């Protein structure tokens, strides 16, 4: 009867630069590829064409026609919630996120062939939990609530959130699975951000012991490489740029810049598999050559910031590097061979890699869903006659100090059941009117209760 087994659930990893989704139904897990390109990850990009919001590759493709109508990395904007102007309209970051979610849902429902009402969205561990204490001040960090709201706006009836490192730690890894009780350092180098978390592995529910993040990601390496290309290729790039436009803000200049960035990304990705790459930005310009070592040198400062970020977190948690059982590399950025090398040097711990680093979070979340139990809670019931205990408190309200009987205890009429203190300071005891057995306590000591409240359940 669990919701997880018979109804489809869409699992979504909405990243700063790319997003992915899978549909889980029962034991089947199916990826939602981008319809246009067939890519497994959707660019987290939007483009406002004046009538509708394009998402993913269509947005990427259109960005060259009007770069000002295009946006990416809007997930970063959730914290400050500052709207951006696309074309001639203002959009809040939450609206841009919702647009991506709508696109993912639409495609997933098309593939699945029916409505999907439930979603699990992974969120960075740095998003602070929503306080449940009613007296707490309004939460400073609304990003979790915004993510739920974006999911609901995208048409999901039920939206669950899952911290990304917890999801990643459930991801299929090369080699044997992570052991129960293991301390795993999750190293997640995404396109836009680097996130790390220390997770204790458990069969059903991993525990996040600590987390940290910095605003460096794979895109920053792309940018460094693009700058390198600009300087290395100055001879042939400069005339091109001059020819492209009179001013640096003209669309043609922006277009050329984008092209260089995309070129840099392509070179970087190819260096994951080969030691040296030779490629051409345009058919009529000289070849550009880069070796893996050169890329590693270029990325070294950034990679060292990521390991420093991990070390600082471990330090904060009072965990020595040798106590960490494994380092799990996830995120597209971790495909760079330099990452494995840097992490090994920094911590000297066994390195585990996700089968599919880009999809580790979304696939892990799908596995978590299967393990995290059913989502229906049946009411507790008793074959015997159970009645609630309530009391006509003098003055209407009092603070429960402590219970004087324990669940399971039999009491007689007149027995003192609990001690309370009225707002005036006077202590009043709550007594039983009939003999019975205390079944369950509903109110914790320290809580203010009123005459309307049910304080406990009793069996008669």
């Amino acid at each position: 009867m669990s919701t997880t087994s018979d109804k489809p659930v869409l699992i979504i990893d909405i990243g700063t630069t790319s997003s992915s989704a899978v549909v889980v139904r029962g034991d089947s897990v199916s990826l939602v590829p981008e319809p246009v390109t067939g890519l497994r990850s959707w660019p987290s990009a939007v483009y406002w064409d004046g009538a509708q919001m394009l998402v993913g590759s269509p947005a990427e493709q259109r960005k060259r026609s009007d770069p000002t109508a295009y946006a990416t990395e809007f997930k970063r904007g959730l914290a400050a919630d500052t709207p951006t102007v696309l074309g001639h309209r203002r959009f809040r970051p939450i609206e841009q996120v919702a647009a991506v979610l709508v696109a993912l849902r639409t495609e997933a429902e098309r593939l699945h062939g029916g409505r999907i009402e439930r979603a699990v969205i992974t969120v960075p561990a740095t998003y602070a939990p929503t306080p449940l204490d009613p007296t707490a001040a309004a939460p400073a960090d609304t990003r979790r609530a915004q993510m739920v709201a974006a999911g609901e706006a995208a048409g999901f009836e039920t939206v669950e959130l899952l911290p990304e490192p917890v999801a990643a730690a459930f991801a299929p890894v090369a080699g044997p699975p992570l052991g129960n009780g293991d301390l795993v350092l999750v190293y997640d180098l995404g396109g836009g951000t680097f996130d790390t978390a220390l997770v204790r592995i458990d069969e059903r529910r991993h525990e996040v012991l600590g987390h940290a993040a910095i605003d460096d990601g794979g895109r920053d390496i792309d940018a460094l490489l693009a700058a390198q290309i600009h300087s290395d290729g100055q001879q042939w790039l400069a005339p091109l740029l001059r020819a492209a436009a009179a001013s640096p803000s003209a669309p043609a200049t922006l277009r050329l810049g984008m092209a260089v960035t995309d070129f840099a990304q392509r070179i970087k990705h190819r260096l994951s598999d080969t030691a040296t790459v030779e490629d051409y930005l345009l058919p009529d310009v000289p070849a550009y050559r880069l070796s893996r070592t050169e890329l590693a040198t270029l990325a070294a400062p950034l990679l060292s910031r990521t390991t420093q970020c991990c070390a600082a977190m471990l330090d904060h948690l009072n965990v020595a590097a040798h106590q960490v059982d494994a380092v799990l590399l996830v995120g597209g950025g971790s495909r760079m061979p330099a990452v494995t090398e840097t992490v090994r040097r920094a911590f000297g711990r066994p390195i585990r890699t996700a089968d599919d680093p880009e999809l580790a979070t979304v696939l892990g979340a799908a596995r978590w869903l299967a393990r995290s139990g059913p989502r229906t809670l049946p009411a507790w019931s008793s074959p015997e006659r159970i009645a609630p205990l309530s009391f006509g408190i003098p003055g209407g309200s009092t603070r429960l100090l402590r219970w004087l009987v324990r669940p399971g205890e039999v009491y007689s009429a007149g027995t003192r059941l609990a001690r309370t203190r009225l707002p005036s300071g006077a202590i009043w005891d709550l007594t039983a009117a009939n003999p019975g057995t205390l079944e369950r306590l509903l109110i914790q000591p320290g809580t203010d209760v009123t005459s309307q409240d049910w304080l406990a359940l009793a069996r008669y």
Partner: protein
Amino acid sequence: MTDDVWGITVSEPILVVDLGTSGTRAALVDGNQVTLVKEPGGGSSWPSAICLDDAGPVVGTAAELCKRTLPRRYIEGPRRALDAQASMRLEDREISGVDALTLFVSVLRAEAARLLGSPPSRLSLAVPADYEPGDPRRDLMIGIGEAAGFTDVELLPDAVAAALDPDVSDNLPAGALVLVCDLGTNWTVGLVQVYGSHTTLLSQRGNAAGHHIDAQLINDLRERARDWLEPLLAAPGDPGLRAYYEMIDFIRQLKHQLSGGGEEVVDHLTALSPPHRLTRDRLTAIATPALHWLVESCHALVSERGLTLADVAAVVLAGGGARLQMVVPGMLDGLGFRDGATAHPLRRSGEPELAVLRGAARYAAGAAARVVPAERPRWQVEPLTWDIPGGVGRLQRWLVAEGAPFAAGEPVARVRTADERVFDLTVARSGTLVSHRSAAGGPVGPVMVAGAARDRGGMPLDAPNRRLHLESRGLWQLHADRQLLVECTRAPSVRLRSLLDGAVLGDFRPEAGVDATTRGRVFVDPDGRFCLVGWDADGWFSVWEVETGKLNTRFRDPGGPFKVLVDETAWRLATEGGSRGVGLRRRAATTLWDLRTGSRLERLSDEHWRRQHPGFAELSGRDGFGTTTTSPDGQLRADASPAPNGDPVVAVHDTTTDHELFRLRGSAGHQGRVGFSADSRYLLVNWESEERSLVDVYDV
């Protein structure tokens, strides 16, 4: 206090403490036995002082004694630091008022443990009247008690305690108003309503008058003795501080001596210093502004409530300041009690310093009675409970409305847990959701409850709890608003009673126009007013308005005996069956009367006159009792059936299923009528016979 657990009597001794600014008093209350916790030296009041001896902290007189040798390690009146929420200096370290008072209370607890054989676990602390509910200093006071080792800490406003002082407020009627003037270092006036355990402080005002009187006396001394006193005070280091403390003690001592009587006192600060004189006139002059304030405050507190001093049952003088000679006469004058000198309500006990402690001890002795028994369970509601995974969550929304049915396994609510999982709450059986009890959007956990209509399938039919049983020799009616019972006695008189507890909310008894033969019934006039219609053997009719007691109409129908009927809409009365004519021509006739004017309207000889005048009835048509009735919420139907084979019966059915839920049996010879309260919570059954009329109120 005693606690009855499985027949074993467990005693719970309570330490009662009045932490005054300058003096602290404590008593141990065990059941009805009150033992003063005296100072090791035997005094009933511990000086509120602390001294940090090399061996550790000492309090009370021991601290007073060591202040001469260790003046820098001595602090007086630690409560002032708490009042101001500041800290004090004790030689080279800071000590908070909380720490100092915790130290003090710990010593008192140890002393109580010595008396008792084991430490008491319950503390009752008198707190200044201006620590009103919500004041953070109340939490600090509770923290002090807990830090000193007590499990349960109770607070009692000192004004309430003083009002309960058995020496001054015995025999006060319940609900009496008492003005408490507590004249310690701070002077406070509180208006207290005495109601046993429910005694409450209604309002209060305070002023630092006691402190100002001492300061003024010290000023006097310093001015007059400047040449020899100032050099002593100005001495550097401990000697100067020592002289300062000596001076304060000296002034208080002079004041106390003068309180004992006499026109003046003369004493020497030290054996070598010249004499200092304090006259009663001077002390009176100094105290006069404070007394004015006191009198004004008494007037103000009562007038703020729209009352006068005549409404106050007692004015209690408590605290050491009450010993000042000019206080009693000043208050008698100021409050205007001089005239009726014998019966004025001003009261002062022999030891006013102990008034708060005595009252607090009396309050503590009543602790066993301060219990709230559980409400009788509403038998038809079954609690549904869910354990929230992880212990806490937020209720996203209800999927089944209150009052709506749900199917077995159908989600009734949706909860988001702290780890952002979303759960649907279900129930294994089908039923009706009666009450939500948790609001959507609010936090829930670790257990969430809701109320469902009890599944009656497997339950035996049983009657609900009878809440109330009322008996009258007259007639009962259920007021049209279904919130009041109207009892019309044969006297006749009319009583309005609450159907919650039977309390008499209104009582009307005609003073004139009735005799032993008068009978009456209550009707409701076209304006909705209750009217008592009474008639006697001579045929005199009277119509009174119950609420105002006004006699509206009086008229006479010399016929009789007859049946009396009233048309409440037209506001007319009919006397049916009165004899008309004599001998063979004697026959029944009906006369109609206008109840507004008392004038005769019509005489009818037709036996079937009621066909033309259908509005007439023997009982008020606006009576909520009937032979069959449905609850206002439409869920229950009650029918009273006449008893062909003996006992009359009231049967209650569920209107949706038409299942009989339970039946109630009356005694032989009674007729049943039924009604529901306006909120559908109570079923009322009226059993009537020739001799008596009963009303039973059931919780449904």
